[in-house]
């Protein structure tokens, strides 16, 4: 009889974690649709970046108000999760407050969880007000309509409800403790939930027990639901910020990669000893010729796809973008959101077709990201600098421009003029290369 709750608990826990693992596998498969890229050099620097930027929230505090509130919620969630460990042990073994043996230390722990829970609620309320009442510019841009807006609010509601359940659970526990109920040994300090006592005052022991158990169950089930919500939400950043900062580009921001396939061709072109009539070597595998640049998510690299899943749509990139600030359609955040949406679409297509992608007549270019957005970028790196988790929207824009120019010859006409000038006279304007030193005598 008494084993039934434990059994149910174990089942819920296994299902919650199992479903999460299933989605993590899907996420990893989707990211691996991207091209391989070597980002494991200089590991020392990578660990350092992860420690400072993801764990240390270094770039969050560039904007002090949002940064401070975020740190409270972040620390709150990390620390309060120690409590989840106790809940899991209690749930599996039918104990109650198994860590209570720690005595004074337990009081300190529970007391600080409560204070943090309270601060989290306050911060989340302020976040909600910033989003829905003050309506900060970056939260109401066109790409934030519909699901992205709801997603953001759902996360905030989730957090408030979880914290409230935690405090309610403690308040009833405290009341049961003071009534001397069986199992409810006196343990823990309750600096916040003691103020909730009026809510449960006068309740019978059995009613209190019911409320306490309900809060306890809803709290842990809520956490498992939240864990599984992540995959469908922008909130994945709480996990992916860590690998994302680790794999981020270490070179100077201004450095774009040089396409190796192009290097080979150009070298061959410039090699005076190359035989222009040479047939391909016999052992050369005739494959489909590679594509230059990116028109769909499979053409991007794995770090770019990880970037897309990591983006939590805070919009700092877009609010720093000179093109966006002056009313152009480009929004670096939308580039990341579109990339993820398309990647999800491709992933679902693969799921529906027994593991093979079935051509759907769509692609990232045009169906999600328009050319107008791509050509509005000044490559100034403001978005890259602004991202608190080291996402690089610029690299996707550049890869898509490469596709437009090298596969489609679809550059704006003025840029084509500029490029033919460079090709013909070594300068972006129609000046003669032989006149390059004329300034000296003018």
């Amino acid at each position, binding site marked *: 009889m008494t084993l039934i709750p434990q059994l149910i608990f174990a089942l819920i826990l296994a299902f919650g974690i199992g479903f999460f693992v299933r989605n993590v596998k899907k996420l990893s498969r989707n990211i691996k649709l991207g091209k391989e890229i070597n980002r494991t050099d200089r590991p020392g620097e990578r660990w350092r970046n992860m420690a400072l930027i993801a764990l240390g929230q270094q770039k969050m505090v560039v904007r002090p108000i949002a940064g401070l509130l975020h740190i409270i919620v972040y620390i709150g969630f990390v620390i309060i999760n120690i409590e989840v460990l106790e809940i899991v042990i209690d749930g599996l073994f039918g104990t109650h407050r198994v860590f209570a043996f720690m005595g004074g230390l337990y009081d300190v722990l529970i007391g600080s969880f409560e204070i943090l829970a309270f601060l989290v609620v306050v911060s989340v309320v302020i976040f909600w007000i910033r989003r829905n009442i003050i309506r900060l510019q970056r939260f109401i841009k066109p790409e934030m309509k519909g699901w992205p807006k709801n997603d953001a609010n759902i996360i905030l509601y989730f957090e408030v409800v979880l914290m409230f359940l935690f405090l309610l659970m403690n308040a009833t526990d405290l009341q049961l403790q003071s009534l001397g109920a069986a199992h409810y040994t006196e343990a823990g300090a309750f600096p916040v939930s003691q103020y909730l006592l009026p809510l449960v005052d006068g309740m019978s022991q059995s009613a209190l027990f019911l409320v306490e158990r309900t809060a306890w169950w809803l709290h842990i089930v809520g956490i498992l639901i939240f864990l599984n919500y992540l995959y469908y939400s922008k909130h994945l950043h709480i996990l992916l910020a860590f690998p994302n900062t680790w794999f981020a580009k270490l070179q100077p921001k201004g450095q774009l990669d040089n396409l190796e396939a192009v290097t080979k061709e150009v070298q061959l072109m410039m090699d005076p000893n190359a035989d222009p009539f040479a047939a391909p070597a016999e052992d050369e595998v005739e494959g489909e010729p590679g594509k230059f640049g990116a028109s769909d998510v499979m053409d991007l690299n794995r770090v770019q796809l990880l970037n897309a899943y990591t983006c939590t749509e805070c919009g700092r990139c877009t609010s720093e973008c000179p093109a966006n600030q002056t009313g152009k359609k480009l929004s670096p955040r939308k580039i990341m959101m579109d990339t993820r949406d398309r990647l999800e679409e491709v992933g679902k297509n693969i799921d529906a077709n027994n593991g093979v992608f079935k051509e759907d007549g769509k692609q990232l270019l045009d169906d999600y990201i328009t050319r107008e957005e791509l050509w509005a970028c000044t490559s100034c*790196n403001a978005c890259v600098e602004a991202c608190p988790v080291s996402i690089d929207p610029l690299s996707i824009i550049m890869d898509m421009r490469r596709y437009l120019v090298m596969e489609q010859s679809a550059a704006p006409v003025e840029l084509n003029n500029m490029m033919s000038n460079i090709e013909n006279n070594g300068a972006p*304007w129609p000046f003669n290369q032989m006149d390059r030193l004329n300034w000296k005598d003018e």
Partner: protein
Amino acid sequence: MSETLKVPTMAEMMAAGKTPEVLFWVGCSGSFDDRAKKITKAFVRILNKAGVEFAVLGTEESCTGDPAKRAGNEFLFQMQAMTNIEVLNAYEVKKIVTACPHCFNTIKNEYPSLGGSYEVVHHTQFLKSLLDDGRLTIEGGKFKGKRITFHDPCYLGRANDVYEAPRELIKKLDAELVEMKNCRKKGLCCGAGGAQMFKEAEEGKKEVNIERTEQALDTKPDVVAAGCPFCNTMLTDGVKGKEKEGEVEVLDVAELIANAQDL
């Protein structure tokens, strides 16, 4: 105007059996754009005065390929890069200075993996090192006490983390260095990067250079200092657009130093 600038080419240097201490990469803007040519000459006058043994490639120089690369044309970029690298390597160039942050970024960061590794410095860094070595003295002259605001070029600042060299030079002019709302890491683009210089902007409610010029004018400056020929053009246009060209000058850091000493 006939002034005597000493501008030896690498070819002349080599013929005379000499090796310059640095190659001055003039860039397309510095070679052809009327406004930017003034920056080139100002920088050369300072080099001449400081007795720096430099050389230029002259007609052997060609576009680094930056605008082509940023427009998406990797082929054209690499063709330009490899041609330039062949020339630079043939002259055994070790150190390059340039007044264009786009050339600076491209040669410094994108040439090495194509076979061209050099020590590359921006002209403000080079001037700062001349100052530190005692080869150059900076006087305030007509800029003494003037309010000067510095616009961070994206390809010098965020792209390569060079923020202080130009500012330290400006401070040496005994001028009052004032910062814009967006500066250093948060500097706002002038609107010309990523090949935008060569095309009309997409539809929007404002031009980027106007937005930036407004930030600059908000500091009530006498001079808007730039360190990039493209930024210079964009800000000059912006100041004209705001009809402030009578009150506010847009000058390169090299011009500030040269003009202060009537070079």
